[in-house]
């Protein structure tokens, strides 16, 4: 055996082993990525630091400085009944496709995830964190609470009254007579003509890592 090439042969073997074992181990999927991130981000959920009041979302919608992205992660039928103006319908499995968009958001961007109650949106928020760690928040109380506040006139629901929030089950509990999507008044409430609602502001703008990379 030609021992002159032994170090090189060893090196080659090491590299092959290292790459083969890597292929075997695999890269983390979104759930695993969340597990890595959880120590840092779970507390934010537990302390309710990323749940924002509907009034704060309304404020964001009217703030020209903020680049607002609203992800609606509900079913298409719920979406057709009612959704917020300028929100984007995204299924949970498709959140990872938003990666490029999320990574190129400006410093003034704020992402808000909405669902009927908070549960689906919370799951979606975790996925967003695993995908791209954007500056993201969850609509507290979901669209059920939103509609209770910015309410639809009784005509639209035939006098159903406010949705109960005590036992959230993920359903939309405002039975609209007409599925008008974002053409309901509550899809874009007029901030100035409503009674001011107190809230604790939680949204903070993050400073972006300078992403000029490579040789450019």
């Amino acid at each position: 055996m030609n021992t002159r090439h032994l170090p090189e042969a060893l090196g080659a073997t090491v590299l092959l082993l290292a790459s083969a074992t890597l292929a075997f181990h695999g890269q983390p999927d979104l759930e695993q990525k969340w597990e890595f991130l959880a120590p840092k981000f779970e507390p934010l959920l537990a302390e309710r630091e990323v749940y924002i009041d509907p009034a704060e979302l309304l404020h964001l919608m009217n703030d020209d400085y903020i680049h607002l992205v609203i992800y609606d992660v509900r079913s298409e039928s719920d979406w057709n009944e009612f959704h917020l103006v300028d929100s984007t319908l995204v299924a949970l499995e498709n959140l990872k496709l938003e990666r490029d968009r999320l990574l190129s958001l400006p410093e003034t961007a704020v992402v808000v995830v909405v669902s009927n109650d908070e549960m689906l949106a919370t799951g979606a928020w975790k996925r967003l964190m695993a995908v791209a760690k954007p500056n993201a928040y969850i609509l507290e109380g979901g669209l059920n609470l939103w509609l209770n506040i910015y309410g639809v006139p009784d005509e639209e629901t035939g006098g159903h009254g406010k949705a109960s929030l005590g036992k959230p089950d993920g359903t939309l509990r405002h039975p609209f007579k007409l599925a008008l999507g974002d053409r309901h008044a509550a899809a874009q409430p007029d901030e100035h003509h409503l009674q001011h609602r107190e809230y604790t502001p939680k949204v903070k703008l993050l400073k972006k890592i300078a992403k000029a990379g490579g040789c450019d």
Partner: protein
Amino acid sequence: MAPFDLVSLLGVTGSYFIYLAIGFAFGFILESSGFGDSRQLAAQFYFRELRVVKVMFTAIVVAMILIFWSTALGLLDYDQIWVSPTYLWPGIAGGLIMGIGFIIGGYCPGTSLVSAATLKLDGIFFLLGNITGMVIFGETAGLINTFWNSGYFGTFTLPELLHLETGIVVVLVTCLALGMFAGFEWIRGLIYGRAK
């Protein structure tokens, strides 16, 4: 998780210092490997010297394995890594031009810096030419704007292209590199005989 936001950790000046240190190590390794010498570099294209492929592809494979083991173990966040976007046609065209420049000039931008730093006159002339070429590009960029932005695929990686898992692609690249090393050695033996 790495990578870190250096500016918020160390301030702008602190972050610059890190890059200075990285550059220092880079230049040191290049010079120590003989990359400040245009004869060593050009000899690659005649199979007399195989430094260029050996260093480049060993570096890529080693880095790749370290990077993707780190992401696999949750130490490094892949989404925060800068992956240069693919502009396919200008990339290929630029590469061809650079290949021609390489064999005529004997350096590439990084190695010419090292060469110039050790007072090699050919390195200094190369660097001056480098700057000239860049200025020419800047002046004429408007004329080729459409071409320069053509073939845009965004961040496009080999696993996405080949529809294979990341880990499999790492194995393939490793095999490719090792195959290249063996292949080039064999070609060198053919051209120049066994006596080395």
